């Protein structure tokens, strides 16, 4: 089986009828897709297959041979978040974080198809994702902020190390070193 995962071509030895979720988590060590209900009901295992959000727990590896798979690891990194990631950060659109990769990927794909979704469209698009912490309010706020482009520079740079953390002027003042 061959897959392009987050821009890197991979040759996989996971059995063809095993799930894409297991191949990503167990063979490639990409753990952002979560093994939630593993029945397609919760949305936590969502990945983008050729740009479309799909349940990796219900997807046999053989069905996506040759496809391109994207997980949140490819969207951004600490200090350089994608606008959707930054909006979730800025609007406090997560608590425990288990459902977050699924929500972020589904939102990313939705905004690529429809840059200006209505509130009803957002609810309909994301209704298959279950969140048990936030009550969804701030998740919807994050999606709306991302759609409006209402994301601050500071949020895009969240998680950065170095000067943005207000590092001291002198690293070790008084040190003989």
């Amino acid at each position, binding site marked *: 089986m061959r897959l392009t995962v987050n821009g890197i071509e991979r040759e996989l030895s996971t059995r063809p009828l095993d799930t894409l979720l297991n191949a990503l988590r167990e063979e490639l060590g990409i753990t952002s897709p979560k093994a939630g209900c593993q029945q397609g009901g919760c949305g936590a295992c969502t990945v983008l297959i050729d740009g479309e959000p799909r349940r990796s727990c219900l997807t046999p590896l053989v069905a996506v041979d040759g496809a391109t798979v994207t997980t949140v690891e490819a969207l951004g990194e600490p200090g350089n978040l994608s606008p959707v990631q930054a909006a979730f950060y800025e609007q406090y659109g997560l608590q425990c974080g288990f459902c977050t990769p699924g929500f972020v990927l589904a939102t990313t794909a939705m905004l690529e198809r429809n840059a200006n979704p209505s509130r009803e469209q957002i609810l309909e698009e994301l209704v298959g994702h279950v969140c048990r912490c936030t009550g969804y*309010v701030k998740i919807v706020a994050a999606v709306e902020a991302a759609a409006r482009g209402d994301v601050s520079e500071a949020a895009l740079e969240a998680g950065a190390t170095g000067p943005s953390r207000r590092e001291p002027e002198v690293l070790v003042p008084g040190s003989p070193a």
Partner: protein
Amino acid sequence: MAKHRGRGIATIEYPTGMNQNGDPSQAWIKVKPDGRIDVFAGTVDIGQGSKTVHTQIVADTIGVPYEWVTMDVSNTDSSPICTGSFASRGTFIGGNAVRFAAERVRERILEIASKEMEIDAADLEIEDGEVVAKGAPDRKLGLADVAAAATWTHGELLTGAGAAFKPYSTVDDDTGEVDSEPHSAISYAACVAEVEVDDETGEVRVDKLVQVYDVGRAINPTLVEGQIEGGALMGLGLGLLESSYPYYPSVEHRGEQFGAYLAPTLEDLPDLDNVILEHPSADGPYGAKAIGEMANNAQPPAIMSAIHDALGVWVTEAPATPEKVLNAIQERRAPQRDGKRVVYDDQISIAAVSGNRGKGGDGEGFLLPDE
């Protein structure tokens, strides 16, 4: 057949910390030679934001920017004991532990700064990472310089430990009284639910929840609101959808399908109107009490009461599934005996009236309805 609207209210009170106390949280803090603060504590952030709140408490208590504080809360080897993230105790008890530790560190910083600046420690304060002489703001020394002096000049470590603990309160078996307060604080909340009930299908929809929470001082209002919103949907689930019964806690008869256990989704999201009411506690960190577990308690009774307002019948067991709502409606319409409302239910009526089920020695006696 029609849709009915109703409004109901419920109020709750909730204790902060483990019942009967005896649940310690501890923390220790060290200052690095560059003036940055490392906190070692055991209160794990499960998404509720305790790491953020504890960082705020440490930063404000010592007097440094938030960004200078690093929390290490995930290593059970390096961190001291915390009983855990439960019992609505993270902000109050865990927060007090880091506060007490930070107060000691602050004293140590002023001690070294006093030597360096040749000003009595009582005349110094720490503001935004600088030790400043009271009344003479131009006389100041950065915390990085104080920490460096401690390290390279005085050969000392700026550190401090703190522990929050209320002793276990014992219950007197005869009177039921406890020998000390069994909790750290009491939080209060009220919830008003507006529902629409379909008397044909039994379906209930929650349109709006107005929720007021007295959490003492809201150290981080955004995080408190996050708990209120999250609790709203959990409470809505407990009121309308979620049940582990009838066989809980046996795992043998639980639903096999994820879809058989219904959790609220975006479809169920009502309008939420949240109010945070501040009545600071006497001894919580900066007057905080708690939100935590109380966040999903008020909604189910408010929803039940709103259903009663809409239909005039009580659903007496949560969740108010369509089946239970329809049963409640039907029960009110059920025929009465001798003009009186008499309820006999072979599921809930207690069958045995005595050891021999009401029969005399001759086996005669009145018959129970199922015989």
